[in-house]
């Protein structure tokens, strides 16, 4: 490493000399220093002569220097401009003379509101901050890097109001989902459109098989190297996104990558190491051993001593045996270790007046917190971003990235061969080591402790978690290339044309293999997945500027877009391994269904136009419209319009007339309206037949393919064809104000929005007795409305000490207004007893299921029929709404009416950022808050059943009063048994035995509602301490401009009442729109980071 670094620096030094060698006689040099109002040097400021397209950026000391070749020196003065984000740009006139040096030091005033800065607004359009009439959140590249996340989506957590990020888990390569201003769709994943440098890219998350099992899978935007990012603009609402028409229904994330700057070539080498661990241990009991309720001596040692013995019934698979006298084992700690991550990133950028370049390469090696080598993810990225100005009016560029990712993962979730399912069900008296039987070398597990030669291909019930970790093979390998070629042409000084031709390709292959004797498939299984995803996009826009008079000017833009996407997925399953290894399809007995080779092609084309009117330097009006056609729309609505209009009024001048400008230094009011769409899925026009399908058995696994005995079987798809389908449409109105106070020491903004999503597409359930179970229809109506606020305060701004504090807060109220007669629509990614759905009058993405009978609930149907209903009604007369009915036995009764039992949506979200600078030392932190938003703790429900959860240790020993001392009820309890003291688990010596947790009190009973928990949290999302070392020694001896040393933490502390690992979790990750599903999810992690950056 050291030698490597030295060699690199040596080469860098040689390259750095090159531009100065070019400074031949006759040229002019421009140099100086850029400082802020407090006198602090400003690094990364851009200093240039606009008329010559020539300039550079300042180093850490604020110094700059660049050379103007003699041939470019004209007579007369030229304008020199200095700009930096967060400061007011300044321009001065200078006179260039061949062979001389002009020295100009410039002081830039603070501009925290970024007034005058250009904001990219999509599809080739841009505007300035003060003219912006919609809420667009910008996140700077440095903040992305400072988050220490390798996944760009995770890096956005807590950065902008109403941009909710949920990580699947802390595993390397896990996906992160993003949700902007609430869910507006039912069948989609709710992920926004990602656009990199003007070209849309793929950010899909492809499940490895089931969303409830399999392994984690990356969301494809994680292929972007965070160090390549200059800035991210989040177009949240419909008005902002309307320029992207039918693809902007869930918002748009615009990513701009870094470019070179003219002048000396610059080098950045960042090396970063981090260690990760699990934030929280899982509460497992270690007092009671394997066995039935009170079944004395039913320990593993006595019940399953004979070779080949299988602990057959679940009651003995549970840990309700007698108290342990002997050794117990920690089944949490044996699965986790400290993870490590190493990242190296090198970028080189520079250029001259005509040619600019930015090159980068990065590697990231992440070994996760699950023990063993199979929890790892590696990413290698490269990027070339170069442009050349062929003539003064014509510039061409190319910006291409290639990414290679390789991962190994451990199976998760609802999966008898998943890590925690067997891991946490293992009784404390069973030692998972040795993992393999010393004689037969076969898997040992708690239900099959003594394998025999005959049991090589026998299911273990649940796999030994260490067998899952060490003996399975789950790999993910992808190759990704994406980028574009651009041409900017300014044929006339009022007209520019820009064409962006981009492409995106990713090829991914995954293998998911389980060895013989695995519980999920005892004879061994290999599944191969291939995903090929391509996208080609061409965007052409022409923009003309006009100026009618001093008070009226603006732009007209016209553009066209053509987009082709193709996704090909192949899925081949090989059952029954021949030899024990290798895990290859050719080493299996049968290739079987489900095998699929689905292909999805979508073509779209669109036209768009935009007109802006800047009136009297204070009123800025924009009107735009896009017309989109898509192959997914039906013939009768092949093309659709998406209009938008917005207006911003900068009333700062009026404030000064009223002498309010001392208090309010800037003010803007804005209002906007827009419509955006969401494409339907492809191929929904015709009723189709299912080929290669199978008939399953109510979710329990047994299935037979329609092809039997070599005879082909086809059957009618349950989905009825829909010849009339159009895009989902979201119409949004937003309004807000942005302000600066006390000479911009305080700034902030408040936005209100309300949107109605109509024609929301979903599979409208049909009565199965019609022969079909559903039909895709434009049938839903959803409303999202909310408030967003940001407030930043800079109480101290001195040369050597500054403090900034910023907060953001948002609410979103999501409501399903109608589902065309249906009361609810199921959404994928959850479980039968607690299934995700959109419910009329409720939310999209809430879980539905059964609860115990409660007073005041609608359509209560207490289990036990009319007699119980009568008793229930009598007890509830005059009782509080929500009071729990307790029958004579002292327990509640199941309410057979299924209802929405969980609201995953937070009441509000907020972020609090603090930044301190003491000279060259910077300290920053980000606190991320979520209030509300429930989580289904399915893990706990299942572990109650199995008796390994810590709660069951206490609860089996004492009697409780249901609803009071156990599962306390805020609305009280009623009924004949209210207040009765009961044992949840029969006490020794009583017969017959009873175990509430193995009936309705556990996760396998009908009542999921009892495991819904509050998912509120506060997280110390980021903390970072950075020192910039730019002493003379660094320049002279190291040949560097500065060295940044940073010590940071990520997710160091979570405050939450959630009893599982972490309320921020989701079994399917970004594979579906649901959040808050926790069923043996692998845990979240925290990181401690040390980073070293060498700049030159």
């Amino acid at each position: 490493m050291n030698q490597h670094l030295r060699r690199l620096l040596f080469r860098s030094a040689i390259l750095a000399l090159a531009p100065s060698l070019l400074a031949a006689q006759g040229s002019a040099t421009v140099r100086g220093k850029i400082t802020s109002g407090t006198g602090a040097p400003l690094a990364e400021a851009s200093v240039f002569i606009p008329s010559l397209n020539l300039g550079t950026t300042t180093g850490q000391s604020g110094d700059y220097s660049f050379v103007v070749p003699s041939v470019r020196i004209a007579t007369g003065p030229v304008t020199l401009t200095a700009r930096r984000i967060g400061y007011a740009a300044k321009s001065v006139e200078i006179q260039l003379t061949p062979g001389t040096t002009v020295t100009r030091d410039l002081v830039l005033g603070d501009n925290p509101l970024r007034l005058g800065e250009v904001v990219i607004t999509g599809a080739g359009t841009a505007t300035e901050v003060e003219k912006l009439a919609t809420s667009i959140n910008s996140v700077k590249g440095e903040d992305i890097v400072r988050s220490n996340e390798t996944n760009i989506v995770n890096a956005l957590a807590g950065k902008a109001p109403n941009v909710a990020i949920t990580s699947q888990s802390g595993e390397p390569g896990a996906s992160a989902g993003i949700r902007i201003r609430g869910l507006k769709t039912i069948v989609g994943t709710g992920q926004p459109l990602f656009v990199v440098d003007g070209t849309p890219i793929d950010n899909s998350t492809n499940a490895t098989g089931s969303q409830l099992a399999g392994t984690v899978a990356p969301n494809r935007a994680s292929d972007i190297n965070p160090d390549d990012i200059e800035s991210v603009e989040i177009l949240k609402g419909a008005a902002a996104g309307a320029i992207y028409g039918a693809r902007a229904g869930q918002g748009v994330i615009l990513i701009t990558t870094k470019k070179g700057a003219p002048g000396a070539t610059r080098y950045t080498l960042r090396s970063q190491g981090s260690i990760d661990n699990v934030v929280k241990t899982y509460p497992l009991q270690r007092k009671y051993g394997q066995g039935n309720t009170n079944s004395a001596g039913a320990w593993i040692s006595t019940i399953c001593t004979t070779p080949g013995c299988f602990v057959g019934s679940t009651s003995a698979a549970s840990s309700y045996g007698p108290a342990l006298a002997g050794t117990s084992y920690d089944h949490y700690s044996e699965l986790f270790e400290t993870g490590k991550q190493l990242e190296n990133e090198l970028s080189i950028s520079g250029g001259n007046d005509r040619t600019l370049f930015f090159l980068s390469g990065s590697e990231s090696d992440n070994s996760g917190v699950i023990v063993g080598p199979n929890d790892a993810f590696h990413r290698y990225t490269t990027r070339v971003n170069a442009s050349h100005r062929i003539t003064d009016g014509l510039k061409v560029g190319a910006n291409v990235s290639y990414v290679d990712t390789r991962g190994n993962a451990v199976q998760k979730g609802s999966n008898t061969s998943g890590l925690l399912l067997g891991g946490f069900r293992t009784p404390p008296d069973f030692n998972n080591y040795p993992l393999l039987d010393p004689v037969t070398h076969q898997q040992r597990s708690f239900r099959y402790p003594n394998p025999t030669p005959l049991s090589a291909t026998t299911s273990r019930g649940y796999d030994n978690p260490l067998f899952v970790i060490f003996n399975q093979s789950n790999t993910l390998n992808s190759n990704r290339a994406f980028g574009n070629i651009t041409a900017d042409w300014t044929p006339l000084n009022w007209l520019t044309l820009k064409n962006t031709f981009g492409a995106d390709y990713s090829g991914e292959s995954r293998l998911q293999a389980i060895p013989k004797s695995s519980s999920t498939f005892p004879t061994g299984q290999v599944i191969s997945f291939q995903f090929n995803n391509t996208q080609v996009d061409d965007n052409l826009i022409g923009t003309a500027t006009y100026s009618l008079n001093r008070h009226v000017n603006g732009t007209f833009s016209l553009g066209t877009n053509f987009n082709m996407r193709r996704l090909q997925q192949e899925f081949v399953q090989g059952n029954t391994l021949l030899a024990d290894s290798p895990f290859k399809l050719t080493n299996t007995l049968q290739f079987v269904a489900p095998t699929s080779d689905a292909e999805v092609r979508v073509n779209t084309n669109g036209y768009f136009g935009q007109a802006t009117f800047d009136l009297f330097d204070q009123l800025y009006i924009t009107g735009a419209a896009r017309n989109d056609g898509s192959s997914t729309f039906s013939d009768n609505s092949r093309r659709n319009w998406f209009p938008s209009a917005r207006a911003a009024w900068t009333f700062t001048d009026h404030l000064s007339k009223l002498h309010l400008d001392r208090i309010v230094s800037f003010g803007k009011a804005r209002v906007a309206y827009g419509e955006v769409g969401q494409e339907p899925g492809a191929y929904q026009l015709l009723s189709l037949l299912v080929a290669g399908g199978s008939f399953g058995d109510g979710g329990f696994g047994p299935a037979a393919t329609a092809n039997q005995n070599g005879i082909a079987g086809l059957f009618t798809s349950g989905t009825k064809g829909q010849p009339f389908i159009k895009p989902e449409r979201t119409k949004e109105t937003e309004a807000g104000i942005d302000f600066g106070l006390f000479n911009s020491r305080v700034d902030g903004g408040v936005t209100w929005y309300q949107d109605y999503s109509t024609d929301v597409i979903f599979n409208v359930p049909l009565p199965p007795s019609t022969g079909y179970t559903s039909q895709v229809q434009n049938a839903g109506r959803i409303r999202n409305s909310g408030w967003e606020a940001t407030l930043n305060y800079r109480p101290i701004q001195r040369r050597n000490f500054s403090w900034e504090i910023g907060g953001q807060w948002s609410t979103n109220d999501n409501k399903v207004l109608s589902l065309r007669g249906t009361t609810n629509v199921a959404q994928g990614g959850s479980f039968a007893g607690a299934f995700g759905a959109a419910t009329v009058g409720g939310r999209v993405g809430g879980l539905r299921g059964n609860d115990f009978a409660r007073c005041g609930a609608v359509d209560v149907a207490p289990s036990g029929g009319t007699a119980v209903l009568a008793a229930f009604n009598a007890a509830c007369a005059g009782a509080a709404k929500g009071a729990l009915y307790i029958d004579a036995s002292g327990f509640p009764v199941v309410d057979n009416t299924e209802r929405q039992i969980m609201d995953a949506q937070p009441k509000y979200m907020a972020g609090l950022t603090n930044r301190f600078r003491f000279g060259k030392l910077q300290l920053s932190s980000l606190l991320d808050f979520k209030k509300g938003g429930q989580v289904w703790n399915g893990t706990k429900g299942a572990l109650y059943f199995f008796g390994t959860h810590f709660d069951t240790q206490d609860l089996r020993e004492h009697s409780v009063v249901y609803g009071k001392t156990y599962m306390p009820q805020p609305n009280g309890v009623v009924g004949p048994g209210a207040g009765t003291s009961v044992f949840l688990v029969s006490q020794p010596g009583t017969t017959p035995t009873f175990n509430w947790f193995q009936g309705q009190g556990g996760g396998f009973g009908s009542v999921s509602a009892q495991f819904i928990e509050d998912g509120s949290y506060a997280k110390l999302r980021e903390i970072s301490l950075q020192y910039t070392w730019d002493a003379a020694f660094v320049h002279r001896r190291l040949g560097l401009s500065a060295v940044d040393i940073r010590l940071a933490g990520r997710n160091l502390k979570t405050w939450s009442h959630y009893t599982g690992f972490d309320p921020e979790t989701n079994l399917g990750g970004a594979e579906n729109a649901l959040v808050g599903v926790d069923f043996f999810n692998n845990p979240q992690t925290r990181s401690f980071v040390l980073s070293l950056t060498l700049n030159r």
Partner: protein
Amino acid sequence: MKHTVKMSLGALLLASAGAAGCNDSLTGPGLTVSPNSPTSATTNQLFASIQVSNESQQEGGIARLASMFTQQLAGTGRQQQSYAQYSLTEADYSGYFSRIYSGGGLIDIRNVEAATKAASDSSYYGITLVLEALDIGMGASIWGDIPYSEAAGTAVTPKLDKQQDVYAVVQAKLDTAILFIGKTGGTNIGPGSVDLTYAGDRTKWTQAAYSLKARYYMHWVEGQLVGGAAGAASATACGGDCLVKTVAAAALGISSNANDWQTFHSTTSTEWNFWYQFIVVQRAGDLGASKTLVDTLKARRVANGDQRIRAYFDSVNVGGGVFDFRGADRNGSGTTPLSVLSAARLAQGFRQPIVTFAETQLLLAEAQARLGQNGPALVALNAAKAAQASKLGVAVPAAVALTGPALLTEIKAEEWIASFQNIEAYNDFKRNCYPRLTPALAATDVPGRVLYGSGERQTNPNIPSPANQPARNANDPKACSDVTHPTIVSN
């Protein structure tokens, strides 16, 4: 040079604008027509699926439920334990209700019927009608009133038909089937080798149709005995005296073990026996032997050497190298280790009996015994026992010198044992209340029916809410705990 560059760039821009400017690129194969799914199927391809759908229905969750409700098997873990304790929500059996109608169910049965009719293949048409009768008859036996006359047609929300009306139509379909299956020559080709049950054998299909007729007549005997409104419903369903009709149909039913209707399975993993998949592959430990049946079979082995316990279950090491059969109690708890299905019945390729010679003989025996024809009833009973012995390869001694109530009781017992793992176990139990089961937990009765699937109930306003659904079906008016239940009186 500069000029040329501008010209060519301009041309490029115009060309790309032109390419984007039409809708031609938005339609066509692969774009508006799916590259993934066929849009038409042959009759044989649809018929193949109908059979598999039917198998999954006959061997799936309802059969497990029947086995647990009648305490042949015990739900010993997770969901099965809850189900065995009658804790079922409308969502639990939604998929099974849908399967009656959706792809592979009635909609494709109708497609095959239409296609075979159009092709004048009467034999094929008739065989398909038998599949329809099994599909619909099973649905009506479990849920009672079901959508049928308006199902899988143009109705948006098909109405519920009375259980007795559904049975009457099913009987009529079977009559038509019998008439058509026998037709030969010309266009009457039949399904041939695509028929996984009988390879298109007309005689076997005709017998199976008669056996189903006998089964569906017998389903209404309780109603006939109770009389009143239930009797009237029975008369509608049977089109006459149910017992007499049963005797007549059973006499023409399946005539030997060789003609049994069994599911198709093999050692190929896509063709595995559902019970193997459930018990061995998917849900090990959730479904074991029931103490009720184990103890009965053990007692029979002691009493007369009936060895069926060996055919049904595997013994387990109960300690010290002693092997015995162990079943779990009605609540799913009890001793460990526990017996599960025998290796033979859990074989990947084991073909589960659906409609059998033994069942037909027992229907005949029950009807005859109830009609007071003791002699023929005993003959039929022993024919069923002999068929079992031969089929299972274990001793099943004949019953001797039984008459009257004792004979009827033995027939009921034999029905309970012989219908092992079959949905009919539940239908027999509802009618006969044999064995005298103690329901699970503190329930007073084994449920008379399960709720309609939530998928249907939530989309079809003709389906009553769970609270308003009947507890029992028209053909099963009395609960087993009801002392006026005709079976209890005759016991």
